[in-house]
């Protein structure tokens, strides 16, 4: 008979040690969270609970681990203040605490020399951690609609061995074009692709990599409730049926996950849990 495997995440009250709005609407929060940092791997994420003082019943929100300082137990998340949850989280001041559940999910494999990292918009968050996890020669394409939304501070990307290619759709910073267009130029000469961003970007990259038989890994997002694999709320369609983004992902081999998910037929009239 199988015995229980202890999970390696925990839910802890973690003090915020630093807050920075790196651009209008983009917030970088640092926590003292040694319970998370010791085990955290690039591509993993945390569920951030709402400030207790809000008194509101709201689900915790998933955010990628953007970087860790293991020695000092510091953990960084980086997010766009898009909705009510992000807004509430961005109001906390250093000194106060938030509950963090993590580290969660399966991260990226270790990048080899010649790896191509592709970030669309906030998809940069997990790729910063990934880029920092090695010093082999590697390239990061960081794409965004426009310069104002290129919120990740440039210093965060000044890493040994890392070539950074910036691209904006309107050409307001770096090259003009989409991350995908630029990436397609680099893919043929890359050893593997690691990507995070909008679904269309991931889908296009997956296709381009598959054509050339290059391994590709994508981090996907889905609405979550538990974040730990219990509720089956964060399903994504894969070759093996629905899998859980929070537990079986968020990083999947690009070829195994359905990235074009348009909704299909619906059976269940009454909703159904």
């Amino acid at each position: 008979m199988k015995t229980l495997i202890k999970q390696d995440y925990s839910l802890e009250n973690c003090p915020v040690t630093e807050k920075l709005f790196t651009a209008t609407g983009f917030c970088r929060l640092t926590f003292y969270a040694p319970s998370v940092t010791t085990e955290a791997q690039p591509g993993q994420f945390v569920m951030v609970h709402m400030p207790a003082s809000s008194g509101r019943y709201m689900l915790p929100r998933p955010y990628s681990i953007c970087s860790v300082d293991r020695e000092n137990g510091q953990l960084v998340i980086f997010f766009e203040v898009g909705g009510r949850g992000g807004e509430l989280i961005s109001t906390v001041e250093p000194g106060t605490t938030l509950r963090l559940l993590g580290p969660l999910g399966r991260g990226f494999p270790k990048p080899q020399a010649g790896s191509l990292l592709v970030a669309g918009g906030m998809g940069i968050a997990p790729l910063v951690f990934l880029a920092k996890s090695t010093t082999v020669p590697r390239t990061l394409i960081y794409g965004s609609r426009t310069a104002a939304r290129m919120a990740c501070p440039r210093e965060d990307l000044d890493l040994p061995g890392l070539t950074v290619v910036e691209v904006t759709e309107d050409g307001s910073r770096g090259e003009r074009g989409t991350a995908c267009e630029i990436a397609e130029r680099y893919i043929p000469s890359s050893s593997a692709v690691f990507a995070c961003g909008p679904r269309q970007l991931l889908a296009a990259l997956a296709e381009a990599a598959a054509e050339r038989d290059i391994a590709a890994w994508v981090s996907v997002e889905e609405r979550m409730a538990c974040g730990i694999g219990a509720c089956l709320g964060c399903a994504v369609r894969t070759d093996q049926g629905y899998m859980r983004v929070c537990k079986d992902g968020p990083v999947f081999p690009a070829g195994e996950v359905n990235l074009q998910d348009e909704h299909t037929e619906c059976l269940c009239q009454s909703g159904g849990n």
Partner: protein
Amino acid sequence: MSIPSACVNLGGIELDTPVLAASGPFGHGREFEVLLDFNSLGGIIAKGVSLEPWPGNPPPRIAETASGLLNAVGLHNPGLNKFIEDDLPLLRELGPKIIVNIIGKNVKDYASVAAGLNGIEGISGLEINVSCPNLKAGGLSFGTDPDLTYCVVAAVRRETALPLLVKLTPNVNDIVSVAIAAEEAGADVISLINTLSGMIIDIEKKKPFLGNRFGGLSGPAIMPVALKMVWQVSEAVQVPVLGMGGITSASDAIQFILAGARAVAVGSGLFYDPDLPAKITGGILAYMSKHKVTSLSELEGLAHTGGDKVEV
């Protein structure tokens, strides 16, 4: 004065505390193992299990609403055999009593799941989820009709000697008639409520947000609706009631008990705070001390008779 006891007997199942994990949000317990003090949980109701695996609904399956959670997981589950092989052994080790929530697309399926669980160690009861879409009736759920409910419950009753909980859907005219049908068919406990049917729309994409369009609403938003149904059903049936729907505090749980529930279950509240069972159990004991009550039976349904008339 003696120390208050939180023990209750729920239709033949002895519980150390009157707080259970509701079916679904908790999955099969494994993931919550490190987050929760299992001493504070009287029982765990496993997520709905069907005879064959069910794939569930297309994503997105989760949306947040004002004080509520809308889900359309679609009863995604690995099927009876895998449940018995993979999930049950782990569940059994957690400590609390295990109740298995069973689902089906027709009466026979329900009965077969019940039969398939006979003789399996470590199961204290079955909970029939009659909210499943009845494929014969155009997808309307069994639980909206007293006669269909009777059929499902009677069929499962014939297959099992375990205590039988019947979990009702709130999307009905008259919950009382469905509860009475379930009782007559052999239910030992009435569980209520399941989620309210609802939807939200993504105004940028101009289409329903959930992959399944419709979902089930849970969370504090629905608590007044749940509480009223517990009140009404507990007046109408002899068997105990397991109350749930939006419980996120001890005071919520106490409202259900005063309304007539023997025990309560916590569902989506666990996402918000895995310490809830411990806080609720602790809060109930504190309330009992304050109100000089040693057994929960003294509180059960007390609000029906205006409990404050005698005390100071």
